[in-house]
């Protein structure tokens, strides 16, 4: 007998000691055994309808479903013996008899549990000689989700997600038995701001993303674990890229931040990454200039403005490493007016955060102040401005009151020196999300090989201003340097922040 809330059982001959109260699927996972499942999802109610997780429990006559069988001490489970395999093969065959088998044109191909399990658990032959049931295909459930009734296996994960997690209760099953079919409320369009999660939840290709449709076979893509930067929640995501363009984002499990979900807004917040109008080379005086030329021009502009004062405005989309690099430049120039811009919007109780940028906390950590609602009419010799994404901008009159301008931006911006920005999928770095959580972003692509990240550019500028300064060679080292210096980050390492993030070690008032 095991103690303190644990039980010991045997799964396929392996002994497993697991927390009491979990089901056989989760217990098996803990010892590296995958029990196939479609309808079961750890955050949704258990309905036990797909029947593919059948297991044999010693001493119990009928096969039991792993999703609804809680572990017991001394339980002996068999997930693969001949009896289980035969019945599971049966379930797979039933699932496929009315399935269109149109994998060649299906976006889910490569990530389809029906494909996976059919290979692992199916018999490979079909004995079904009748016409497959005809059901509607390619139904638009609004502008984000596309539904194919023929591929649907009625696991009801989508129904339960909208009901139990998103709370909008928009999908139901019409008819019954073999005629059962999903229907969407009212005009047939989904309204939930979280609706695209059902695309990830769908274990087959019945729900696909209009945004991602037919863009790429997944096996040609590169996947990078990073975070959603559309708001301060910092939902953990996997960014999918191909040929140095961003194709999609899907949520990545993080129980402390976003669980398995993300908002649609965050998921679709990446069009600017692929924007054809992005600038890929700095300009000085309106003319293309290689980085060294542009930077020495910036140095001249800024040093020349020292007496009249410099206004520095950071962006809450920057990483901590970039913000600290910018701080270094400001220190070298003796800049006093250091602000950052933060777009605000609506929030909700689930994941959507009212701060529509990922790193206001990092800005504060690096000593930047929230931009005032009413800017004073002070004039400055120069503006050093990192322009945020489209949601917010420095008011034109503030810009006009600065005689010279050094501007970092994604697209062309009138200035004395204009330096291209990179987006968060193009670099490594950290941000401080809501709840004072330090999280990593990681490089998944480069937009243009010639682009330098802001951290590198700012460090080089810093060296021009102060030849004694030597920047860190990588973002990881930059983080380490920052962590050594800043008490709020003391003790954190790039590895300890890792894939799931870490709390700031002191309660800093950054919100």
């Amino acid at each position, binding site marked *: 007998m095991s103690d303190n809330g644990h039980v010991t059982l045997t799964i396929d001959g392996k002994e497993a000691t697991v927390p009491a109260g979990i089901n056989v699927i989760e217990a098996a996972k803990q010892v590296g055994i995958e029990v196939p499942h479609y309808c079961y999802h750890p955050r949704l109610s258990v309905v036990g309808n797909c029947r593919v997780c059948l297991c044999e429990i010693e001493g119990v006559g009928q096969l039991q479903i792993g999703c609804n069988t809680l572990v017991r001490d001394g339980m002996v489970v068999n997930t693969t013996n001949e009896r289980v395999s035969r019945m599971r093969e049966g379930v797979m065959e039933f699932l496929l008899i009315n399935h269109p088998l149109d994998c060649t044109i299906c976006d889910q191909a490569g990530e389809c549990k029906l494909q996976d399990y059919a290979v692992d658990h199916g018999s490979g032959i079909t004995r079904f000689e009748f016409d497959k049931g005809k059901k509607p295909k390619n139904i638009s459930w609004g502008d984000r989700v596309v539904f194919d009734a023929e591929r649907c296996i009625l696991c009801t994960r989508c129904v339960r997600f909208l009901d139990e997690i998103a709370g909008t209760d928009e999908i139901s099953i019409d008819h019954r038995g*073999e005629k059962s079919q999903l229907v969407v409320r009212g005009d047939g369009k989904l309204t939930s701001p979280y609706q695209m999660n059902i695309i990830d939840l769908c274990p087959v290709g019945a729900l696909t993303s209009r945004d991602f449709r037919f863009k790429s076979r997944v096996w040609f893509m590169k996947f990078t674990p990073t975070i959603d930067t559309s708001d301060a929640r910092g939902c953990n995501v996997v960014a999918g890229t191909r040929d140095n363009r961003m194709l999609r984002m899907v949520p990545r499990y993080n129980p402390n931040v976003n669980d398995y979900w993300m908002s649609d807004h965050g998921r679709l917040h990446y069009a600017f990454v692929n924007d054809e109008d992005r600038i890929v080379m700095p300009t000085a005086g309106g003319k293309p200039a290689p980085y060294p030329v542009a930077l020495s021009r910036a140095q001249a502009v800024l040093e020349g403005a020292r007496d009249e004062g410099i206004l520095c405005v950071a962006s809450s989309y920057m990483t901590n490493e970039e913000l600290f690099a910018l701080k270094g430049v400001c220190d070298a120039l003796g800049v006093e007016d250091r602000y950052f811009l933060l777009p605000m919007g609506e929030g909700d109780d689930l994941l959507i955060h009212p701060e529509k940028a990922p790193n206001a906390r990092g800005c504060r950590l690096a000593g930047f102040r929230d931009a005032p609602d009413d800017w004073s009419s002070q004039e400055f010799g120069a503006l050093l401005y990192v322009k945020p994404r489209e949601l917010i901008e420095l008011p034109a009159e503030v810009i006009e009151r600065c005689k010279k301008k050094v501007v970092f931006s994604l697209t062309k911006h009138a200035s004395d020196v204009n330096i291209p920005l990179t987006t968060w999928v193009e670099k490594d770095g950290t941000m401080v999300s809501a709840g004072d959580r330090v999280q990593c972003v990681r490089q998944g692509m480069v937009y243009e090989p010639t682009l330098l990240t802001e951290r590198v550019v700012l460090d080089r500028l810093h060296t021009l201003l102060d030849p004694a300064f030597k920047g860190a060679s990588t973002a990881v080292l930059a983080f380490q340097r920052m962590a050594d210096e800043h008490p709020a980050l003391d003790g954190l390492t790039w590895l300890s922040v890792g894939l799931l993030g870490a709390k700031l070690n002191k309660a800093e008032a950054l919100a």
Partner: protein
Amino acid sequence: MIQETRAMLEFADDPKQIELATYRKNGGYDAFEKALKEMSPDDVTQEVLKSGLRGRGGAGFPTGRKWQFVPKGNDKPKYIAVNADESEPGTCKDRVIMEQDPHQMLEGTLLAAYAVGATTAYIYIRGEFQKSIRIVEDAIDEARAANLIGKNILGTDFSCDIWVHPGAGAYICGEETALLTSLEGNRGYPRIKPPFPAVEGLWRCPTVVNNVETMACVTQILRRGGDWFAGLGCEGSTGTRLFCLSGHLKRPGVYELECSTDFTLRDVIEQIGGGTLSGAPIQGVMPGGSSFPVLRADELDCGFDIESVAKAGSSLGSGAIMVFDDTVNVRDVVLNISEFYSHESCGQCTPCREGSDWVRRMLKKFQTDGPDEGDIATLMDVTDKMDGTTICALAVAIVWPVQSFLKKYPEAFAEKVTA
């Protein structure tokens, strides 16, 4: 000659029996009154245990034992749900009780409520039974007016309300967990077990689900004694039971009979049912509704009790004995059965939703074209894979009859030999 033993149906032919006054005059509610005033709830359960009563809904589970599963000293409310969904093909007996002696069911329901401490009971009557619904509702109103239902019944501190709840046309709602889901106002999906209804039923509170006839038996047991009931019928099949004889019989009808090992299923078909109407030989019998294996004409000489019929390879199920003679093609019969179940599958479970329709389509092909080589083995294998792999027993209710027809009438399902 086999005779009817009329206990539940003793007064059923009196049209006034549906009225409270007549029911009381004939001894109605005396047992309930006595139980309330002289017996503890546990005494009532003990009497039912002693009687050997097994549920009349089809599964034959011992009723007293089911009541004992209800947790004691649990502060959640407890409920009774009377299963009056009567939809198993061939079954038409609960309706007879409801239309001709509704108080008998209500009295049994009150006794069950008293035994398990339930304070509300719902009678889930299939929506098509409008006449039953009206009669039972009137009976409830009369009983409530007489303080037999409601608060502080007959001056005691026992309170129990009873309401009729109409269904809306779905066989699956007779399955006890689907009945509960439906009663709560949903699509009638069976629930995964555990938890069982006695522990977590209606609104996650302990709920006893019993068939209408089971409740009528409870009334008889408390009226005449558990020993009396146990002395009728035979071991394992005590008391009297309502049997529904239908199909190609001379005298179809609902009869109250004792089970016995002294006479056979064939005797009942011949003596009670009068043999076939046309005089043509019997071809087969479904002895307990269409959910169980068919018996061929040469398999009818088993005893007439639960155990003997089980030994013969089928079940007395819900007491629906359907007889067909040799003028009908068994391919039509089994197709008709599969059409029923595939229409009634709720559609949750993969094997039942997909399998039931596949089976139906194969049987349709057999009916029109006959099976091709290998088809029978495929159908046997497909049905094997529906057996024991689903949430509720509807799937096996397809498997058992279909497999039995294929095995027992091989000549009707001879495969076309391909040259």
